[in-house]
């Protein structure tokens, strides 16, 4: 019997270890697994490497993790926003490491991890500072930089509906990094708005098949 549903947010993140690499879904405020991140804050894991597009904003979710000094290193594409004050303050003080990755490369590196590939060459950023120290090769007539997979211990993502097998559907642009992150982590934890019965999700329209999902927790909107 497969049943990936867990009853509480605390249970969903209970075993995230200190030093873990954690993927956190979302783009801007869309699709951020806010409640799961808050559960991780409660849980207390520290020395984390967080992989996410933005570096948090205001006082919630990733910004709160940073404020509480749980994040040693952040890997993201766009850490700067109106409300990214905690990240900026710690970054200026040299108290948080930043690895800046072009957004498409960030997503593709996680995909490569999920797909069992050893890396890929991409033209993105090949002529930029972000290629420094990396192998660059001319392929198909253009300079391309070698990028490595970005696997993780845990992924925290948000979806719309799930069944007990962990099949997921998302809603509008909240899908963003979720499906890729689900493939890239050893443990994928998902918060959804609603559980549905097995067989209720259209098999043609499942976006993340349950094979990529370990735990789902319901967080009513």
């Amino acid at each position, binding site marked *: 019997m497969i049943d990936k549903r867990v009853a509480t947010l605390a249970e969903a993140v209970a075993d995230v270890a200190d030093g873990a690499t954690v993927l956190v879904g979302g783009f801007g405020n869309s699709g951020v697994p806010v409640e799961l991140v808050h559960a991780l804050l409660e849980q207390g894991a520290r020395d984390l490497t967080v992989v996410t597009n933005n570096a948090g904003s205001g006082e919630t979710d990733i910004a709160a993790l940073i404020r509480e000094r749980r994040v040693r290193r952040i890997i993201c*594409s766009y850490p700067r926003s109106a409300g990214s004050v905690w990240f900026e303050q710690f970054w200026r003080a040299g108290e948080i490491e*930043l690895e800046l990755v072009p957004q498409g490369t960030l997503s593709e590196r996680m995909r490569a991890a999920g797909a069992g590939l050893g890396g890929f060459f991409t033209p993105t950023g090949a002529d930029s500072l972000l290629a420094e120290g990396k192998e660059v090769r001319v392929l198909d007539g253009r300079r391309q930089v070698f990028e490595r997979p970005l696997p993780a211990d845990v992924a925290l993502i948000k979806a719309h509906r799930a069944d007990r097998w962990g099949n997921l559907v998302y809603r509008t642009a909240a899908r963003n990094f979720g499906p890729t992150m689900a493939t890239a982590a050893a443990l994928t934890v998902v918060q959804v708005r609603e559980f549905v019965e097995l067989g209720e999700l259209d098999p043609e329209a499942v976006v993340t098949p349950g094979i990529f999902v370990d735990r789902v927790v319901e967080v009513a909107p």
Partner: protein
Amino acid sequence: MIRPLSPTDVARRVARDIPDGSYVNLGIGLPTLVADVVGPDKEIVYHSENGILGMGPAPTPGEEDPELINAGKQPVTLLPGGSFFHHTDAFVMMRGGHLDVSVLGAFQVSETGDLANWATDEAALPPAVGGAMDLAVGAKRVLVVTTHTTRDGRPKLLAHCTYPLTAAAVVDRVYTDLAVLDVGPEGFVVREVAPGVTPDALQAVTGARLTFPSDLAVVPPG
């Protein structure tokens, strides 16, 4: 007397160059104005890097869906025929050459088409790149919208970029408040100028040698 184009005028000029039926990504800032001025005679499919094709206009106030946002994190709508997909696929569309047009802002553009639009030499702010590099390398045509000079009058069109590059040799055409310029083997070739702009005046505010062909035109009124 020089009459610089307004941002809306520039957007209108860009819109004229976007063929009916194009797949287009509009960068954050000035480029987003383009969608507001494309005529109703054209069916354009707008792409957003966060997984949307077929974005429609901004929602009616009160009708916003906080999850349905564009790359600039503003609420948008979806047109009939639109679709949602994940981030990795959104960048397949960008990097893979599937977008017809990418319209980007710029800090600097070089005469060889190098683009600098993600970082200045200011060390006080953490660096941030977003999808800029993917947009610059992937689209079939890369159009840049920018003011011709910085606020304090320094040229943005240069022989060589001094800011960190986003991508090398990618820009096809530049639209400024003063001119429309193609980037080709000869460097910057001025196609159109704003009303009252003389070749000498334009050259004086440009950091690269400009070529003025004999059929130089004035930007037509939007």
